[in-house]
């Protein structure tokens, strides 16, 4: 029994951290967030060269064929680095949906280019927005037509993407309009489409939780570092019990979220019957924990934490967007209740 990343998985994670420290430091994050799309093609091609764009997809479509735990470990590092751009939309969302729903021919046509880093994609289920649609090469729409759920793929040329300014500056939201209704290609329909969509949400939610975990871990580290060096009343503020206890709370929030996040990834990977519950437990935890870690981190930083130049608010903005995405804590607790209590 070993409930921890294996040596292999830890090596992957360490390498991802070093890659992102060099290729996507905070200066780069701040540069990209001031651009129109927060996406950098060069960074994307480097990510692709790491294999990350195909990490969980079969080798026959140029994927790396690794599992959920490896995806989670990698996304944890992306969240730690606050990596901007369309990774979440492209890989754990659109890619997973294609892998689950498309025919072999369609996968060769649409999934393989994603794996190779040549294409980006987005998903839209008829809510308020599609994430990072502005840099997508195609959009997969989940739509109820003629009484059945359909998954339809639209090329970018058939879709208008109108930017929607929002709190998170590193990952962009777009309003969706289909401009050429004839250009859609059906991927799946009915119960098959529903199963693929459900699976995609489980995977994407777990990936998002791992990313949130990395973010909150980083907020904790930045804050502890600050508490050790910032002096008030002639002492490092980390010597004040009030600050220590806020930091200890942050450790609890991070470590419990880590347990839930890793287990959700493992349970999905192993197709355990409790996987769906594990995903909702993880998201209900992470949704509140990331925000609360952000609250405590900024509070401990005092006025400094409230400035634009301090990085914490960039994490805080991501935390808020992530809290909402794929259902907030309340929605996931109701999902847990349905599994445990029925009704």
């Amino acid at each position, binding site marked *: 029994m070993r*409930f921890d990343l294996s040596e292999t998985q830890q090596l992957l994670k360490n390498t991802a951290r*070093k890659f992102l420290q060099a290729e996507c430091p905070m200066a780069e994050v701040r540069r990209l967030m001031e651009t129109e799309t927060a996406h950098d093609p060069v960074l994307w091609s480097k990510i692709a060269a790491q294999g990350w764009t195909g990490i969980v997809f079969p080798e026959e479509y140029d994927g790396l064929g690794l599992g959920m735990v490896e995806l989670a470990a990698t996304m944890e590092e992306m969240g730690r680095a606050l990596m901007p751009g369309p990774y979440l939309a492209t890989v754990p969302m659109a890619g997973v949906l294609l892998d689950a729903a498309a025919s072999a021919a369609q996968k060769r046509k649409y999934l393989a280019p994603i794996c190779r880093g040549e294409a980006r994609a987005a998903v839209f289920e008829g809510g308020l927005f599609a994430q990072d649609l502005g840099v997508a090469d195609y959009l997969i729409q989940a739509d109820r037509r003629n009484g059945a759920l359909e998954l339809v793929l639209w090329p970018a040329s058939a879709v208008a993407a109108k930017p929607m300014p929002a709190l998170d500056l590193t990952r962009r939201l777009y309003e969706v309009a289909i401009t050429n209704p004839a250009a859609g290609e059906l991927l799946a329909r009915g119960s098959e489409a529903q199963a693929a969509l459900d699976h995609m949400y489980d995977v994407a939610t777990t990936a998002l939780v791992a990313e949130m975990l990395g973010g909150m871990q980083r907020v904790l580290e930045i804050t502890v570092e600050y508490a050790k060096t910032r002096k008030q009343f002639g002492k490092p503020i980390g010597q004040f019990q009030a600050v220590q206890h806020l930091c200890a709370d942050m450790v609890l929030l991070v470590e*419990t979220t880590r347990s839930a996040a890793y287990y959700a990834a493992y349970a999905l990977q192993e197709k355990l019957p409790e996987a769906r519950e594990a995903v909702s437990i993880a998201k209900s935890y992470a949704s509140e924990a990331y925000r609360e870690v952000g609250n405590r981190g900024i509070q401990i930083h005092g006025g400094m934490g409230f400035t634009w130049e301090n990085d914490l608010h960039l994490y805080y903005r991501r935390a808020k967007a992530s809290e909402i995405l794929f259902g907030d804590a309340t929605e996931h607790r109701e999902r847990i209740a349905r599994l445990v209590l029925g009704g």
Partner: protein
Amino acid sequence: MLYDPEACGQSAQIAAPGTKPFNKRISRQWYDDRFGTTRMDLNLSPPEIQFRDELRAWLEQNLPRNWKQEHAALGAMEEKFAYLRRWQKKLYEGGWVGVAWPKDYGGRGASLIEQVILIEEMARASAPPVANVLGVGLVGPTLIAYGDDAQKKRFLAKILSGEEIWCQGFSEPNAGSDLAALGSEARRDGDHFILDGHKVWNSYGWAADWCAMLVRTDPQAPKHKGLTYLLVDMHSPGVRVRPLRQMTGESEFSELFFQNVRVPAENVLGRVNDGWNVAISTLMHERNTLGANLHIVFKRQFDRIVELARANGKAADPLVRQKLARCRADIEVFRLTQMRAITRVNQSGVPGPEGSILKIFWSEFNQRFQQVASEILGPYAQLTGECEHSPDEGQWAYGFLRARGNTIEAGTSEVQRNIVAQFVLGLPKSY
């Protein structure tokens, strides 16, 4: 090409937008060759499975089917305790007491994971506890680590068999969170120590033959330095045990009074004035094994309150559903965080500050949980044991009160948060 931080890492290597500098991509084979193929694995290993199955088979044979009724039917506290001693004897003969102890001392040299399997299996089977909980869990391991051959020979076997029951004398009225401030004194007198003192929050004192104590032997030394770990015969003249009534009304604990108690010098464990280090080792063991069965206990209570919520209709109330789902998630996250901690200790061999994180979590969870239970039960929540309307013989009213102690006992949440801040995060000492 996989990112190689040694060969790269300079921003100068980042190409201009639009170019494609990395057109060779890695394969799964490349990845496996470079990083290996180990994976996270929550399954038990074959030896662990064998251990579990052997235990299950033994329990199947030996666990009294209706021990709770048998036990409840016994009148006096002493008779009930004798029942547990007999159960421990049986377990001992089966080789299931002190499984983590080295084979030389009557154990099996079981791994931490096997210990946890044992604790969980016992909880799942609702088996009775052993009589000598503190002897087996705390004093024995400390004796193994610090005792001399004579002490090991004298004490260890009788701890396992339950022939001699142990208690522990650490806390004092003026030494709670600040344990090192304790004032019970043992003065050297030839080949004996003369002990005077007062201990509180002692478990099993009324049943114990021996007490493992921390006492002050050098009042001049700085407070952590003048302490000695002493093994005291509870049948010595001058030892008095008084029940300590707690806010629930029960007397789960005792106070111990020592007046002019003569303790042979050979009963010092470790070195004189080095008792603090010996005691810390005991406390580490306490935090390591304590609570391994708690997630099962919580889960059982959770399932029961769900039943009651279904029965009174509250299970359909969206507010109650939120609260129950949160409790469910908390129990699961507690179990998982404990598994991660066990994995880490099992690999490093050293108990760490993870125990403080778990302690804070479960104690605060249980207070939330009991509050949720009381909201579900409504007016019935306040009914205590002696009443026919009282759900589950008043266990919920009792549980509500008892949980209040959780964030105080075995290290207050405040002390635990200091430990996390200082030993996990490396923040400076706050006082």
